Each structure stands twice: as C-alpha cells, then as structure tokens.
C-alpha cells in the first residue's frame, strides 16, 4: 500500500484518529479543560499513542466565547505539556490549527501532530459575541445579530433565483434526519419539509430550521505523516489537497450569493481532479450550503454532511475540525474513497478552508 500523491505539498500526511464530545446546548457541569480532557484521552487511545508520541500541538479556540484571556493556555492543562512541547494556537476554528500542523508536517522535521478545538457558545449572548468579529468602525457598533446578517445572504440568493425557501427546508430536513445516526449531534429528528415550512420566520427569509443550533463541544485529531499512519489505522485518510482563502470583511464589497474564496481554495486543493463521494461542509445556515456546494463544484453524486452537519450541531471553533474528522471517518470505514471537508470562519462565509481526503482504492 502507498499513499496517493498529494496535489498540494509533497509529503503524505493522514488524518489518523479523531474524537469529539457530544454537542450540547449547554455544558454546565464541566469547564473547558474538563470538556476537553475526555476527548484528548479518547483520541490518544484511538491512535494508540500517548502525549510523548506527539511532536507538535496546535489548537483553535477564542477567548471571546469564554470571556476570559488566554483560555488556550489553560486548555493545555488537558494534555499536560511536560516535558515542554512545540505548541501553537490559532484564534480560529481548529480546522486552521490543522492547517498549521499540516504545514509543520510538510517541513519534514516532525511526524505526528495533535490538533484540537473547543468552544462553549452557551456562556454569553452569541449574537453579541459574534458581532465582535465585524469591522469595529462601521459595522460592529451597530451590533447586527448573526441571524439578520445570514438573512441578508439568504435574500441575495433568493433574489438571484439561485435557491428557494423549499430548498433551505430540504437541507435542514436532510441534516436533522442524517443526525439521527450521529450520537454526537444535537438536533436530531425527522420532520417533513412541508411541516418545517409552516414555522414562522425568525428573520425573513430564515425560519428556525435554517439556523444552526448553539452548541458546546470539543474535538481532536491526530495527524501522522508517511507510513507510520498505517500503525494507527488500516485505511488512512490522506490529505491530498488543502487550502484556505479569505475575502474582505466589508459585506458591501462582496457578492454574498457566491463564495469566491471557497472556489479558489477548492481549485488549489484539487477538488475537481476526481469524483467526490462525501462532503462535510461547515455552512452553518442552510442557505450557505447552497453557496458552498456551488463554489466547490459538488453535484448530485456527492453525499452532503452524512454526519448531520452544522445544522444538527454547531460548536464554534471545533466545528470545522469535526467536518475534517467526520470526512476522514468515512474514508476509514470504506464508505468513501475521496471526500471533501470544508470549514468556514468569520461572518457570512468570509474565510474558507477546503481539504481533500483520499483513501487507497
């Protein structure tokens, strides 16, 4: 067996182990460290490794969720970094922490990396917290809530004739139904589209079902370079392409109905070089899935979010890493040969990461 040749980078790197905590509306017993510890233990157990086998650690989280400084330093207590380890952090979804670890692995000095992300969105008023990521001069002081902003994007899609409220409901119904098979998901039910469409608008044209839940959770992945990946998993999920791109924070300067940053990242990651059987997309609002699918170029042959996706569980800072983990799990279990994971960060799909995972056929 040998790893497929990567399109981006030169060294084969695989997603070898993945663990996540159940997404809950509110984890009120455990603090962040206590929420993270079982996840770290589980990912080590799955990889048959201890912290001593890890060459590099990278995490994704944000102090704005916890409302306190340096929460990523505190989170290291969940691992116990003694003797000291090379460690880094991104104030972003942990999918970007994975990207940083992947770059480190490309440089060839290390062979293994632990990546984790955690977020408790329940601690503050999430709409106000998320307003803090807007430009601080003209947009932030207006404190627009995230649902109203997403409604602008949905409206742009509808006005362009690119989607419909029925399609939004179909996306939500499919996500919640698929989530019935995912014990870590939060919103799990089977409700007919017609019934969903009877809900009142939260902010027109968005009904409750088009909006992601508020979730607390943590997730972790272990990356392994080269043949060592076979020591961990029979059919490693090789990262053959990965890229991320960003757009301006000024909404007025963007076409909200499209996502050129996702399209560019997908192109560089080499998505179009072969069929995609599974895609895990972090498009938290139902209309955003339409935009991301179109930008990546996914068609009918691709199963979207078999985990239920972000409409079933949306833990900020961990959600993108979970998409990569869920996509990798489909490679490991043989149900996918070529999967795409997507992560998004910032308001209205401002920054996007696309990762192509392949298993040997």
């Amino acid at each position, binding site marked *: 067996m040998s790893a497929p040749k990567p399109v981006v980078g030169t060294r084969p790197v695989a997603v070898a182990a993945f663990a996540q905590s159940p997404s809950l509306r509110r*984890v*009120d*017993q*455990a*603090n*962040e*460290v*206590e929420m993270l*510890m079982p996840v*770290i233990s589980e990912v080590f157990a799955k990889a048959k490794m201890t*912290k001593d086998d890890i060459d590099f650690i990278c995490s994704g989280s944000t102090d*704005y969720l*916890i*409302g306190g400084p340096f929460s990523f330093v*505190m989170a*290291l*207590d*969940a*691992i*116990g*970094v*003694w003797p000291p380890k090379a460690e880094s952090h991104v104030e972003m979804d942990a999918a970007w922490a994975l990207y940083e670890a992947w770059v480190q692995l490309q440089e060839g000095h290390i062979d293994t990396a632990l990546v984790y992300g955690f977020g*408790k969105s*329940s*601690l*503050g*008023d999430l709409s*106000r*917290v998320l307003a*803090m990521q807007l430009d*601080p*001069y003209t947009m*932030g*002081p207006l404190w627009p809530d995230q649902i109203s902003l997403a409604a602008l994007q949905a409206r742009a899609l509808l006005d362009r004739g690119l989607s419909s409220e029925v399609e939004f409901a179909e996306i939500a119904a499919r996500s919640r139904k698929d989530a019935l098979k995912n014990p870590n998901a939060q919103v799990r039910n089977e409700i007919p589209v017609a019934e969903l469409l009877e809900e009142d608008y939260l902010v027109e044209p968005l009904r409750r079902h088009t909006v992601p839940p508020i979730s607390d959770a943590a997730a972790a992945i272990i990356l392994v370079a080269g043949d060592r990946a076979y020591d961990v998993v029979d059919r490693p999920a090789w990262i053959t392409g990965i890229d991320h791109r960003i757009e301006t924070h000024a909404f007025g300067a963007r076409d909200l109905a499209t996502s050129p940053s996702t399209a560019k990242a997908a192109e560089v990651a080499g998505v179009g070089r072969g069929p995609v059987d599974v895609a895990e997309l972090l498009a938290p609002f139902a209309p955003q899935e339409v935009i991301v699918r179109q930008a990546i170029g996914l068609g009918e042959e691709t199963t979207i979010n078999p985990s239920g996706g972000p409409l079933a569980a949306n833990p900020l800072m961990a959600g993108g890493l979970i998409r990569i983990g869920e996509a990798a799990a489909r490679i490991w279990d043989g149900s996918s040969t070529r999967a795409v994971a997507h992560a998004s960060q910032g308001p209205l799909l401002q920054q996007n990461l696309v990762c192509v995972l392949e298993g040997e056929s």
Partner: protein
Amino acid sequence: MSSESTEPVTMLSTPIRLDYDFTAGLSQSKTLAGYAQGKFIGQRCPKCKKVYVPSGGSCPTDGVATDEIVELANTGTVTTYCVVNVPFAGQSIEIPYICAQILLDGANISFMGLIQEIPTDEVRMGLRVEAVWVPEEELTPNLSSVKYFRPTGEPDADYETYKEYL
C-alpha cells in the same frame, strides 16, 4: 446635524459590553464550595501526587484528572510578597497593604492573599500565616470568605521548604 459639519472624523468611541455565565467546572466547584464552609479544598494528581488549590480539573504536568479531594490546613507560608503603596482605580483596601503569595501547608501551588495584623516593614519571605475567615453567616462560595491572612507567631519556614514555589 447641520450639513456644514464637514470636519473629518478622527476618533470614534464604540462602547462594548459582553456578559458571560462563568462555568467553574466540577473541580473548581469543590474548592468554591469549600470557601462557603470556611475550608481550603484542593485536589491531588494521581500521578505526581501534587496538590492544586484550586484545581482546574487537570494536572498541568501530567494531563490527568485531579480527582482526589484534599482538605488543606488553615496555615501556610509567605513565599513572596509586595507592599502596595500605589493608589489605583477601584482600590478597596487602604494603602499601604501587603499582597502575598501564600503556600498553604499540604499544597503544591501558592495563591495570592492579603496579609494583615503585621506592620508592612515586618512582612518577609518564609513568614508563617493563618487564614482569618469572615463570620460563619457571611461565608460565600468565593475567596471573599477569606478576610485576610495574619502571622501565626511560629518561627519562619526554612527556605528549603518553599524554594520550589517561587
């Protein structure tokens, strides 16, 4: 506003307030509940046997849960200190006062406390102190249950006993 206000905007004030529900977590809750009973409650790492007060839930060295509950003594040693002479906004204590790192007997980490009932020029490293708690009916699950620490009158602790905690 008149249309004549054409001065360029050079400064913008954007007040921000965010409210959070703090989650103490399982381990810190035990320490906080201890304050409400007038006790210092720490937790021991099963691996390195160090006692943390409070514990965040995990041993920062070993990364394992600190699940053994340890009730600590009411006495400890000043490892280091400073005399605060500078007034600042929100100050609630009359200056000068002494802010010290105190290593409770039986603990492996020091924490910050106020020292009183001793002239500021007599406080020193190694000074043995004990906690003075608020009256029982005023005890609450936070550190304000500890009024301050005061000297016990014991001989100073040997430097060797606290040199690892500076």
